[in-house]
Structures are given as C-alpha cells and as structure tokens.
C-alpha cells in the first residue's frame, strides 16, 4: 500500500513557485529520504503532507485517503525548527502532544520512550532545564509517542552529537521495523545513503531524483575514480578526460567524462606520482546532489 501519494501538486507563495507539479508515491513501511538544497521545497512538501499547507492544485493522499483534519492523527511530525513549551514538565508536555493526536495509552508510551532515550530522570523537570540535545530527543518522542503510522521528520539529526544522533537513528529504524513509514529530510548525504530505502530529491520545486540509491547511482554509471596518491591534488589537475575533481585532502575523487578510459587516466597519474590506492566507483549521493544543485563546469573543488 502507498503511505503517501502526491499527484501533480503545486504550491505557490505570491510569485514564488515553491513546489511545481510534484508527483510522488511513498510505499508503506519504508524509510524515504527527502534531499534538496535549502529553499528547494522540501519543507513545503512535508507541510502539505501534514495538511498545514493546502496545495494550490493537485492531490495529496495519505494511506489512500485525501487529506482531512483527522488524517494528521496518524502522522507524527517533527518540524525543522523545534518548538516546545519551555515552562512545561517533560512528561506533561509529551502527554499533551500525544493526547492531541488522540493516541491511546499515552502515559505508558511516554515512559517507555523516556526510558528508551535515557530521559527518565528528566521526566518531571521543566523543558527549559534541558540541554539542546535532550530537548531534541524530547521533541522526537513527542512526534512518535502516539504511535503514528507515518512519521515525518524534518532534519531529525540537525545539531545532534554523534551519540544522540545514533540514538535517534536506532529509534527511526525501530519505527520502521514496527511497520511505520518514515519520511525524513536531511542534508547529510551519508545518513540518506545508509538509512533510506528510497531517496527523493527536489530542486527548485521540481522532482529531480526518486528511487533507490542503486537506481539513482545507475543513472550516473561508474564514472568516478577515487585515488590516494603521494602528490595529492596536484597530481590529478588538468588531466585530459576529467570533468571534475573533488579534493578531500587525503583522497581525490575524479569524475570522468563520457567514454574516458579509466586505465589511461590512471597511467597519466602514475606518470606524475606514485598511487597508493585507487577505486573505480559509482558517484556518491553527495556527488550526485552537488552535480544537480551546482552544475558548474570542470575544475577542482577542495571540500
């Protein structure tokens, strides 16, 4: 079954087209990653799924039904900008948010999640006493405490340290195992690559990528050469047949032009320096993202 279906959805704000004729189908029980540069329409799309914004045209369906007020009870939503009542106690706040979703057995679920994310001893403290990381975990619990079938997370890992990010990642995967569908937006391409069953990229309001990581990478072929050589970036500059070089310091990622022979490039580099290690690979999601969002010509990027 399809958890979320968008058909020809368009949303404008004044003269600005935020989302342009977008169609999308999110299968139930999957983790669906939304990627795209800032201002590309991710949050607007998520808000339309949440029924916070209404599309100017097109249809949004959640679990096969056109959106109406009660649809949102089955959706947990973590907005990009966190919002918590700072004067409320943690448990009271979570019960309020869970109750607002018409969830059942909320107090027990609140306690389970507080324990799961190691916040039990903060249950009776006010939100204003929590650290930023703890507040984000509380916000995450508020999103999932009513056991929604669909969870929408807008930048769930933003600002979290690796330990807290790991906790949230495990929680997201647990939601998936329990049958929930998870849609999350992220700027972290590694997270998207590792966690998402499907990846959707929106750019200037239009869908530019939609599929599994493999299918997306297949579109671009094995056109990338990753090398670790003694001379570093200087050894790979201005080579014929090279479209672009991403310099990561210790490793250089070389994007080849069409029909360029990998062996010839390797030979050219070996003529300049000694190669310690090399790999012929498909482009990373990060690289694909940059190719779409910053379609500049050749040269070296020092990331």
């Amino acid at each position: 079954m399809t958890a979320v279906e968008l058909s020809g959805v368009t949303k404008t704000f004044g003269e600005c087209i935020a989302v342009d004729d977008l169609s999308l189908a999110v299968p139930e029980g999957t983790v669906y990653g939304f990627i795209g540069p800032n201002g590309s329409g991710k949050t607007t799309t998520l808000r339309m799924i949440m029924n916070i914004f209404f599309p100017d045209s097109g249809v949004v369906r959640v679990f096969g039904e056109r959106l109406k007020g009660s649809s949102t009870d089955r959706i947990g939503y973590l907005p990009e900008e966190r919002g918590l009542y700072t004067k409320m106690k943690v448990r009271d706040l979570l019960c309020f948010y869970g109750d607002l979703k018409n969830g059942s057995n909320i107090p027990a679920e609140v306690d389970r999640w507080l324990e799961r994310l190691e916040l039990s001893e903060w249950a009776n403290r006010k939100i204003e006493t929590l650290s930023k990381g703890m507040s984000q975990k509380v916000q995450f619990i508020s999103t999932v405490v009513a056991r929604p079938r669909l969870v929408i997370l807008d930048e769930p890992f933003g600002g979290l340290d690796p330990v807290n990010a790991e906790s949230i990642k495990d929680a997201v995967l647990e939601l998936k195992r329990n049958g929930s569908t998870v849609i999350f937006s992220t700027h972290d391409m590694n997270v998207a690559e590792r966690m998402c069953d499907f990846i959707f990229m929106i750019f200037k309001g239009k869908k530019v990528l939609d599929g599994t990581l493999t299918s997306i990478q297949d579109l671009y072929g094995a056109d990338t050469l990753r090398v670790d050589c003694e001379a570093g970036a200087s050894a790979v500059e201005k080579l014929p047949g090279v479209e672009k070089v991403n310099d990561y310091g210790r490793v250089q990622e070389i994007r080849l032009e069409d029909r360029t022979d990998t062996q010839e490039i390797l030979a050219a580099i070996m003529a300049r320096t000694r190669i310690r290690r090399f790999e012929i690979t498909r482009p990373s999601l990060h690289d694909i993202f940059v190719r779409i969002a910053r379609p500049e010509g050749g040269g070296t990027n020092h990331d």
Partner: protein
Amino acid sequence: MTKTLKIAKREYKAAVRTKGFIIGLLLFPVLMGGSFIAMAVLRGQVDTTDKVVAVIDHSGFIADAVIRAAEQRNAGEVLDEGTGKKVKPAYLFEVVDPAGQDPAELRLDLSGQIRRGRYHAFLEIPGDIVHPTDGGKTPSVSYHAENAALDDLRGWLGNPINNAVRRQRLLDAGIDPDSMKGLFQWAQVEGMGLLTRDSVTGEVKDAVRSSEIQAIAAPMAIAFLMFMMVMMGAVPLLQTVMEEKTQRIAEVVLGSASPFEFMFGKVLGGVGVSLTAAAVYIFGSLFVIGQMGGMGYVPLRVIPWFFAFLLLAIVMQGALLAAVGSACNDAKDAQNLTFPAMLPIMIPMFVMFPVLKEPMSAFATGMSFIPPFTPMLMLLRLSTPGGIPAWQPWVGLVGVLLCTILAVWAGGRIFRVGILMQGQPPKIGRILHWAIKG
C-alpha cells in the same frame, strides 16, 4: 472540538498555575483593600500642630465672632474626650490692626511671616462684608496660605463668618436674631428611587433612598471588573500567540490540530482564566459584602449578564488579539500592535463617566450598542439604579454574539495565514487582506 478543548485545558492550566496569576488574583483585592485601609488609617493621622491665623478685620466685629467660635471648637474638639489625647489642631486667631499701614505692605509682611512659620495663614475681612457697596456682588473674605485650596481651616471659617454676617444683617433690619433661629436652616433634597407595586401583595412599596454606592460605586466596580477580566483573559493572547509562533511551537501544534482548533483552544483557555478570576472576585466580594450587611447595594440582577457578556467579550477580543499575535514576528511587532488592538477595550473606559451620569442619553445608548463596547457599557448602564429598558441588554447581547461569530471567523482566517508566515511585517492592510481573502 475535543482538540480545541485539549488545547484550552493546557492553556488554562499553564495560566492559572503560574505564580503571576495567583499573585495577580490576590494583589488586586489587596491593593483595593489596602487603599481603603490606608485612607482609614490616614484619616486618623491628622497634623495636630496648632494653627495660628492672623486676621485683618476691616469690619470690626467678624474677628471677635470667629475667635469665639474657635474657642468653642477648641474646647470641644481638640482633645479626645475619653483619652484626653490631642486629636485635632487648635485654631488660634491673632487680630492685626491695619491702621496706619500700607495694605499691600501689610499683606506682604504677613505672607513672609507665613513662609517663616510664624502664622499658618492670614485672613482679610472687608469692611463692607455685611452690606457690600459694589452692588449685587457676593461679598468675599480673602484667606491666604501656602496651600489655601486644600486647607481644612478655610472650610471651617465659612460658618462662623456667615453666621456673624447674618446676625448683623438681622440686627440692622431690626429683627432679634434669637427669635429667628430656624430662619436659615437648610433643607436637604434627598435622592430617592422610584416607587413600585409589590406583585404579590399589590401594595405600593416605598421608594428606596438612592445612594452614591448604588449610583456610582457598584456600576463602576462591575465595569472595572469586566475591563480587568478582558485584560487578564484576552490581551495576553496577543503575546503568547506571537511567542508560540516565533518559538515554532505553533508548527508542532499545527501538526496535530487545525489552525482554528489551535486559535479557538487558546481563546477558550483565556475564557477559563477570566471566568475563574471573575468567579473568585464576584463571589468573594458578595461574601464580604454580605458579612458587612451591604447586600442591598449590590445589583444582583446584573451578575448573570456579567458572565454572559464576559464570555462573549473574551471570545470576541481574544480571537482578534490571537489573530493579530499570529501576524507578529517578534516582540517589537507585538508591542506596536498592542495599543491599536486594545482600543476597543480602552474606549469604553474613556466614556464611562458620561455614560454613568446619563445612562439613558442617546450617546450612552448608542455607544452601548456598538458590539465591541457593549459588554462594558451595557453592563454599566444595567448596573445603574434606574436600570434600562429590558430589551436593550438582549439586543446588545445578540449584537455581541454576531460580532463574536464574525471575529472568530475573521480571526481564524488571519490566524491560518499569519501563524506560519515569517518575515512579513504585520501591516493592518495585510491583516485585513488575510481576513477577507483568506
């Protein structure tokens, strides 16, 4: 609707559990009671230093009459009969002979002596006080002091001077003043209410004496209470909605509830806060007044109207203030819009006195039918001893109800757009556009 009630419940609990609410609830009666206590205490705190007054008496006999009256007063009022403690200042008069002195220089000299503390004041009695020589002009006596306008002694002097003048005029007319003691007795015009017939016995009931408490204090207290409750229940919504928008709480709540449910929940929370405070004040006041035996002064028939108008006033004003709050992006925006948003609450306060003085005038009646002003002004008119025609509060109530529905509808449309709109300054034209076009 259940989500609205859940939001209202949270709002209500968040407001009434704060120290600010409890302190505010207690502080108002403490301040009101405190000011009465202070007045009562300060009434006893009289400056008992003797007051010496210089008298320039051109008439030649008034000063003697004043001195005799002062001696009589000093003998009877200065000392407490029971304790013998001095409770009032003695009034002492020294006659200054103006003969051979320049009048202006004499007055200047006495003014200087008052400044130096030698005298409290000086009094100049004209020679023609009994029969003024300048036609029908009212004779006057000059009383000079550093703060003459608020001087108790000046007020006291009126009686002995006028008694002496009247006595002299009677003597000059050949009438024995002692035979005409009741001649100048003042007749009071007493304010009375209208008579009614007892519906059960059919007897005509005596009119009740109309008191200042019934005519002024009770209506004003009720109107002030309405004002305070609106300030307590509706006005904070502008600030809290703005905060929830800027702190992004609004977006989280909107993930679970519609903008209308969110806004109306907040408004109902404000209604709950106001009704709680109003109930505490009204039933607390009735208890205290009942204990003091003053229930006769309380217009009990107004209380149901008070709660009906209060409920609608909070919903009407609260919806508009929440809508305005949703259009604000920061505290400065909210500050700028607070005054215009509060005008419908402030204007009835500005016109309270003329309405109270003539509650049946065309102005008072017309103003009380303008829905944003109706709750306060209709209540004020209802509370006056004469009351108003029975149909007027009902029509006023219907007007407020319709205006409330309109305010909630327009507020909901503004709120829906404003709450997620960032970076656009809240201009009145834009807010109206959101209300009309959505």
